[in-house]
């Protein structure tokens, strides 16, 4: 392509639009289902099971961060939303809103990263759309992805299946993404090699489901609001039950702990992009934990607590000192304190 930046004409549907699609999107997303220049992707019949459909928009700043970029995030986020619903993710769509003046190289890097992540996750990006808006009307690049997957027959997950005695598992250290971004974004005076945990979890989740068929009762990816928010949403949806977690059992990287101590933040509320929480029947907990730990994305998996019949509607954390405190629902965005 001759132009090195995105111009309004790239979104106008003419020759330049076609050229952008050919050189960037079709080149990277190449797959049998891709319909770059027709109105819809026409896909083969799906395997039996219930259809899962999800959509999410990605506006992260900066576009590139340690451990990932907006493209990788846009694929992982949607793949993970499908996977925690019990679905095998199959196809994704991708919608791009580009700010006029965006370097073409930036877009190419993001699209290449999406393609690579989709390959790793075993999903196909089968349709895409591009709009260009005037400079200032968007911040460089926004992406929306939607995804479809199939939930195998017989698999049900959700609040109705949560039971007192269920074990709560997480597939590794929490807060990595939130802290990595915060440190990177603020150009903090202290250095760290912390990276986002951004990763597609469908393989790990399939392994967990296979390890104890029917015994996984609920899963969620702990994205915005972190681990504590997922657990609070669970007790809101299953108000007759409570959740009790052990502070010492929660896996934390030293850099996340240190960064949170420094900023006065709680890592249990920091975002993750490659962590899921599993509620598993108590007797199956060790089998699922072993399956998680055997997967590369679950090396640090841990059992962090249990679903309880008491303190209904609350998430309670046991401190190492023998005391308890409530982990509340976050009221607003976490703010570093004055002193």
């Amino acid at each position, binding site marked *: 392509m001759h132009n090195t930046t995105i111009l309004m004409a790239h979104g106008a549907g003419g020759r330049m639009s076609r050229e952008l699609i050919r050189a960037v999107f079709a080149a990277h997303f190449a797959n049998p289902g891709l319909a770059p220049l027709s109105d819809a992707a026409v896909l083969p019949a799906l395997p039996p099971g219930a259809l899962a459909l999800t959509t999410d928009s990605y506006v992260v700043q900066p576009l590139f961060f340690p451990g990932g970029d907006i493209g990788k995030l846009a694929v992982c986020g949607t793949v993970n939303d499908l996977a925690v619903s019990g679905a095998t993710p199959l196809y994704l769509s991708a919608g791009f809103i580009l700010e006029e003046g965006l370097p073409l190289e930036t877009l190419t890097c993001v699209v290449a990263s999406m393609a690579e992540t989709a390959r790793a996750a075993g999903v196909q990006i089968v349709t895409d759309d591009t709009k260009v808006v005037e400079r200032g009307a968007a911040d460089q690049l926004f992406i929306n992805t939607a995804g479809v997957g199939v939930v195998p027959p017989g698999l049900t997950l959700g609040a109705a299946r949560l039971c007192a005695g269920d074990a709560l598992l997480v597939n590794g250290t929490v807060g990595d993404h939130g802290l990595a971004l915060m440190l990177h974004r*603020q150009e*903090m*005076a202290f250095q760290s090699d912390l990276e986002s945990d951004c990763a597609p979890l469908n393989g790990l989740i399939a392994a967990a489901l296979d390890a104890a068929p029917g015994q996984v009762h609920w899963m969620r990816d702990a994205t915005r609001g972190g681990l504590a928010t997922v657990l609070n949403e669970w007790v809101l949806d299953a108000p007759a039950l409570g959740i009790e977690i052990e502070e010492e059992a929660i896996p934390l990287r*030293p850099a996340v*702990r*240190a960064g949170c*101590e420094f*900023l*006065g933040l709680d890592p249990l509320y920091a975002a993750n992009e490659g962590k899921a929480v599993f509620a598993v029947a108590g007797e199956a907990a060790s089998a699922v934990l072993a399956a998680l730990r055997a997967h590369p994305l679950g090396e640090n998996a841990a059992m962090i607590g249990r679903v309880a019949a008491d*303190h209904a509607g*609350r998430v*309670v954390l046991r*401190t*190492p*000192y*023998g*005391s*308890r*405190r*409530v982990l*509340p629902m976050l*009221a*607003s965005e976490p*703010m*570093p*304190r*004055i*002193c």
Partner: protein
Amino acid sequence: MKFIDEFRDPALARRLVGQIRQMTASRAAPVRLMEFCGGHTHAAYRFGLRELLDGAVELISGPGCPVCVTAAADLDRAIALAEWPDVILATFGDMVRVPGSRVQTLQAARARGADVRVVYSPLDALTLARQHPARPVVMLGVGFETTAPGIAAALVQAETERITNFSALSLHKLTPPAMRAILGAGDVPLDGIIGPGHVSAVIGSDAWGFLPREYGIACAVAGFEPLDLLGAIAGLVRATVEGVPVVDNLYMRGVRSEGNPTALALLNRVFEVGTAKWRGLGALPDSGLRLRAEWAHRNAARLFPVTREPAREPPGCRCGDIVRGRSAPMDCPLFRRVCTPENPIGPCMVSNEGACAAVFQYAVDF
């Protein structure tokens, strides 16, 4: 993690709790201690110390949350300043959500178009001034002796680099006068004071000598980890039981008796002591830091003379009594009913360090 893990040893913590319970076993009423500092309020809840000490020690939250003691009138001024044409107002995070007297916030001002930036350090605000040389950048100086030296340092740096568009609105407050005001009023019976750790790192533990000398009560300067707090509480309980009030420094890794001379010199170079308005305590003489006359060209109060209607506290809000330790959050008619962390009416519900936010989030009967 160094400096953290050694102060979180669960076995030692349990042993200290046992000692405290043993010392108070024969007392009819719990020992009443005020934790001056909002950081201590938060830590005591976070580590579950209130539950561990229930019945033996009562912890009363004091005025040491900088957000909570900022007068509504000063917030109104900060909000008006943020709306001044071209101004970039730099602030620490938790100030953006505090309502002024007309239930306006910096956050709402930002949504209406004001340029309000959350910074983690006053030096970040100075960076903003370098990046936007044509626009005035004002650092909102809220905090105690702890944060004031950082703002003084940023002002000195601006002077050295001749960054002319950087100024500060100093709403800084001094902690010993607030402690005197509370004890002088005499309406909150206290057996001892947990002295603020970070403030004392600047002013020194000797600054609290007046507590035993003039009021006959003990003070233990403490850090923010469980063993710091439990050690301080054990010391204060012992002083109460034995009737020997002294100032004890249990935060030796951060606090010297004479404080931090570099920070104190910096404060003295940039600021002078003057009257400050406290939410709950009113105007207290010699309790605030204002910019010296030589720094008038960086004094946002002078550079941007905003006009305001007279301020009023939100009707029904008891934050004023709460920061004095005179009321508990549950005593407030607004608490939990209309005043929540999602929709804070008073500042004690906003900051992480505020007593109302802490009670709202953590206080539960198990």
